[in-house]
């Protein structure tokens, strides 16, 4: 099974997923597992990536650090093409009785301070889920049946500004419980637990990639749009009109017809838009 998922992960298909971890130790096991290389950037956050578009950023601990890292990365990746990315937070958490090294997706993330909850839509089957409570100080008594950690709420809140909630998930790995308190946490175990969860992590990334790819394919704007934008001056409104027209041509199976307007690039923008509209109104009527 893992081979199949690995193939899809490291094959030619794009993997537009941002993985966000708080600790460098969490990144340590993920880098070789996901064949990531250091990513050169001017950002103050350490980043890794691969040629398939998979990206990893180390945010640092706590809610503020998480918010800053997501803002930074989303600005770095901003595009005009309507293409989005999935966001995955992988990190350690405490739970009253869950065994060390076990892991879940978060199905309800509550900010302990405000009491507000967010609910990542659960589209990915095959991985168990649990409630997550985001705290500002490490939790030692774990009063609820939930995974306690320090970033998930901010992660979800911030990442959903740049993507859709279905594509924002948190994956929590149990590092401490009542029998194994956080003070006794041996940090060396973190990469080991993560390595042992390779199958689940790869499954998760593969399924998230599939969903984003499908979304991005259906929202892909024909090349002509970019070409015209670079060649002629268009107002913001005209850009929107042109984008919609290009998408309509694509949906009607007429993308090839768009190519002919490139030759009109010397013309006035208004003329191009009205010509495209008139043509699609003629052809599009069934």
């Amino acid at each position: 099974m893992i081979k199949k998922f690995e193939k899809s992960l490291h094959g030619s298909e794009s993997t537009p997923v941002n993985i966000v971890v708080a600790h460098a130790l969490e990144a340590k096991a993920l880098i070789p597992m996901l064949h990531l290389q250091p990513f050169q950037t001017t950002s103050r956050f350490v980043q890794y990536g691969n040629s398939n578009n998979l990206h990893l950023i180390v945010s640092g601990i706590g809610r503020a650090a998480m918010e800053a890292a997501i803002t930074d990365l989303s600005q770095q990746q901003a595009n005009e093409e309507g293409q989005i990315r999935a966001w995955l937070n992988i990190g350690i958490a405490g739970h009253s009785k869950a065994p060390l090294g076990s892991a879940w997706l978060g199905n309800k993330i509550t900010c302990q301070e405000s009491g507000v909850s967010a609910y990542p839509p659960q589209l990915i089957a095959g991985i168990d889920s649990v409630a997550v409570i985001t705290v500002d100080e490490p939790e030692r008594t774990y009063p609820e049946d939930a995974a306690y950690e320090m970033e998930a709420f901010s992660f979800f809140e911030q990442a959903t500004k740049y993507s859709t909630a279905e594509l924002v998930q948190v994956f929590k790995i149990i590092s401490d419980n009542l029998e194994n308190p956080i003070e006794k946490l041996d940090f060396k175990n973190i990469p080991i637990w993560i390595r042992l969860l390779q199958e689940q992590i790869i499954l998760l990334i593969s399924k998230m990639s599939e969903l984003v790819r499908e979304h991005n394919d259906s929202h892909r704007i024909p090349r002509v749009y970019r070409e015209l934008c670079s060649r002629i001056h268009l107002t913001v409104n005209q850009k929107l009109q042109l984008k919609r027209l290009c998408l309509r041509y694509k949906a009607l199976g007429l993308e090839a017809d768009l190519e002919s307007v490139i030759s009109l690039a010397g013309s006035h923008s208004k003329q191009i838009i009205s010509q495209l509209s008139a043509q699609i109104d003629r052809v599009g009527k069934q």
Partner: protein
Amino acid sequence: MFSTIYIEEEVLETSRVKNMLDRFPQVPRVVCERYGEVFNRKSQNFRLQKKAPALILAKKYGSKVLVAPDGYGYNDSRSYYFSHMLNCVYDCRYCFLQGMYSSANYVLFVNYEDFEEAIASKIEKNSGGGVYYSGYDCDSLALEPVSDFCKHFVPLFGEYPNAELEFRTKSTQIRHLLEQPVIPNCVIAMSFTSHEAGSRWEHKVPSIDKRLEALQKLQLAGWRVALRFEPLILDSQGLTPYESLFAQVFAKLDARKIHSVSSGLFRMPIDFHKRIVKLYPDEELFARPTTTADGMIALKSEDESLQLAAIEKLLFSHISPQQYYRCA
């Protein structure tokens, strides 16, 4: 069947919810305070959620019986609708629900007794009459095996013989109806589009044959059935798809006993259409030329009224004009 079941704290301990949950021991459960925390939030995507919808069990507050939109049914006066459920298990590409909600999860309001009370009080205010539609924000019967909705609500209308209940559906979940005594003031209205439109745009919907089989069973059992041919999406094939559809439908049903037949063209509020276009920029139906009037969007067509009249003429070779109405 559901990716997750969300349950409002307030209904968690009710026997109806417990019974429902017992049927899905393997589905993950998440408790929430109010369904609005999960449903229809910003940054949600209907299209993605449709891949693995969740069920949300909730309590409905506020108005439960609302005045039906103009032209919704065959009787203009005193028409109401109530929605025990939001969203639908089917996935019709032309469905306005995609533009109405950002979430595709199914919300099932389980406080049936409060709905009952509201319906009864509305009927009494209308001197025992009125038409009450179910299936405006959902498909009335599709979730019946889980909800027991009609099992519960049909007997209420048994007590008010002058009030009429209409279920709008594309579902074949009729077992609960067949198991209970027929009441003459309940109408099961089944929607159909042509074979071509169905295979293009109606996903997960039971086949025309299966729906007709269900209607035939209901009709033979004494239930009143109705036919809704909508939305009509007219295209270059002209009348041919409707000739074959009508022939198939009326070969199976006793036309004289049909309560009513209606047809309606594809229409949608402009805002909903805008949202759907963003959701499905690759859908041919939403790339077609459109016209707008009175806040509604329609597909541009030069001979729309002629085609509609021709379809109606076809229908009148099977039913009487008195049985027919045109949806606004």
